[in-house]
C-alpha cells in the first residue's frame, strides 16, 4: 500500500531535530507501550509484518500527527480488536468484560530474557537457486500493491545492481495474507540492491550518493 509511512524522498518535513542528552523514554507510558508491544508480539496471534501493516494502515493524518509510541499503541489496539482479543468497550473501561482468547504464549518474567536473546529470525532454508547474482543489474518492479509491501516507492521502476545475497527469508507481502496463525510463510531469496543517486533522483541530484534497499526476489526483474 502506498501509505504515508513510505517516506523516502519526501521533502516537507524540515530539518532533523536533535535532542541533547535524549532520555530513552520521554514519559513512563512510552516504556510500557514499548514493552507491551514486544510482549504481545510473543503471543503468536500476529507476526512482525502484520504488526507493521497495522501501523501503516492507520489513517494518514493519525499516523503523521502521532508520536512513535502512540503509533505503536494504536497499532497494538487495532491488532487486538481485529482478532477479538479485546473489545472497544474493554479498551474504554480498562477492565475485562469478556473472557480472554487463547494465545500461544505469554512472555513471563522467567521467559523474557531467553525470548529477547533469541529474537525471531526470518531466514529459512531455500531449495531453489537464486535468480540473480552479485554484480547483476536488476530493475525494481513498478508495482503498487493494495496490501503490505517492503519495496519503497522511490526505487520502483529503477535499475540497480545486486550487492549481496542473504539466503531465503520470509516474504512480507505474503506473510500478511492470513491474519491468524498458521500464517502464509513463503520463502524467497533476499538481496541487497544498490542504486545510483542520479538514477533515483534525476536532474540536479548528488552524483556521489548511492542508496541500497533489501529486496525479495519477486520485487526484482532482470534487465538485458
Amino acid at each position, binding site marked *: 500500500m502506498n501509505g504515508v*509511512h513510505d*517516506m*523516502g*524522498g*519526501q*521533502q516537507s*518535513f*524540515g530539518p*532533523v531535530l*536533535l535532542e541533547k542528552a*535524549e*532520555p*530513552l523514554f*520521554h*514519559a513512563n*507510558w512510552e*516504556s*510500557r507501550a*514499548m*514493552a*507491551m508491544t514486544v*510482549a*504481545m508480539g510473543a*503471543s503468536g496471534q500476529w507476526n512482525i509484518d502484520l504488526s*507493521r501493516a497495522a*501501523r501503516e494502515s492507520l489513517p494518514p493524518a493519525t499516523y503523521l500527527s502521532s508520536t*512513535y509510541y*502512540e503509533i505503536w*499503541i494504536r497499532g497494538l489496539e487495532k491488532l487486538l480488536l481485529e482478532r477479538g*482479543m*479485546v473489545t472497544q468497550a474493554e479498551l474504554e*473501561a*480498562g477492565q*475485562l468484560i469478556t473472557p480472554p482468547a487463547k494465545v500461544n504464549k505469554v*512472555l*513471563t*518474567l522467567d*521467559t*523474557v530474557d531467553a525470548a*529477547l536473546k*533469541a*529474537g*525471531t529470525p*526470518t*531466514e529459512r532454508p531455500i531449495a531453489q537457486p537464486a535468480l540473480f547474482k552479485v554484480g547483476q543489474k536488476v530493475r525494481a518492479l513498478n508495482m503498487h500493491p493494495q496490501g503490505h509491501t*517492503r519495496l*519503497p516507492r*522511490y526505487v520502483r521502476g529503477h535499475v540497480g545492481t545486486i550487492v*549481496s545475497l*542473504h539466503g531465503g*527469508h520470509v516474504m*512480507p507481502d505474503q506473510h500478511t495474507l492470513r491474519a491468524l496463525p498458521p500464517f502464509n510463510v513463503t520463502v524467497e531469496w*533476499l538481496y541487497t540492491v544498490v542504486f545510483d543517486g542520479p538514477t*533515483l533522483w534525476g536532474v540536479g541530484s548528488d552524483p*556521489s*550518493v*548511492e*542508496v541500497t534497499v*533489501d529486496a*525479495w526476489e519477486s520485487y526484482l526483474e532482470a534487465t538485458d
Partner: protein
Amino acid sequence: MTSHSHDHDHDHSTLSEMDVRVRALETLLTQKGYIDPAGIDRIIETYENEVGPHNGAQVVAKAWAEPVFKAWLLQDATAAIASLGFTGRQGEHMVAVENTTDQHNMVVCTLCSCYPWPVLGLPPVWYKSAAYRSRAVLEPRQVLADFGVALPESTRIRVWDSTAEVRYLVLPKRPTGTDNLSQTDLAALVTRDAMIGTALI
C-alpha cells in the same frame, strides 16, 4: 542513558491522555492473562540498563584492535557480534559496513524504524522522525550537515535503507593517534551516531 522517566514534555494533554490509555490497556491485558507485568518490567529494564550503544562500541573497538575479528565482522557480522554475547530481537541478521576514505555509510529505515537493537539499543527520536526517514535517502549530505558533519566531495555516501530484517552497523574509521589505546579506551570513543553513520569519530 537515563533510566527515569521525564514528564516535562510540551503537550501535557496528549501525554496524560496517553498515560491513561496505556495504563488501561496494561490493566486489561493483565486481566486477560496475555501479559505478565513483571515480564513487562523486565523488558524495560533490559533496554534501559543492559542493551545499548555500549554493546556496539565493544564490537567496533574489537574490530579496530583485532584484524581477524574485523575480517569476520565484515564477512559474517551476525556470528562475529554473537561471539560477544549480543544476539536476538531486531539483530537476528546483522551486516557491518566499513567507513573508508572512499565511502561513508549511513543507515536509515524509510518505511518504519528498523534498527539493530542488540548493539545500539532502542533508536533515538530523530532516527524515527519523518525528517530523517524522508531525507536520508534523497539528500544525505544535507542531513549530515544537520548533524554538523561535512565530508569531502570525493567521498561517496552509501545510504543503507533497512527494508527487510537485515540490520546494519556502521564500522567507523579509527581515529588517528589511538594506536596505544586499550579496547576499553577505544570503546569509550565510539558514539551511537557514529555507528548509525551520522557522526564521525
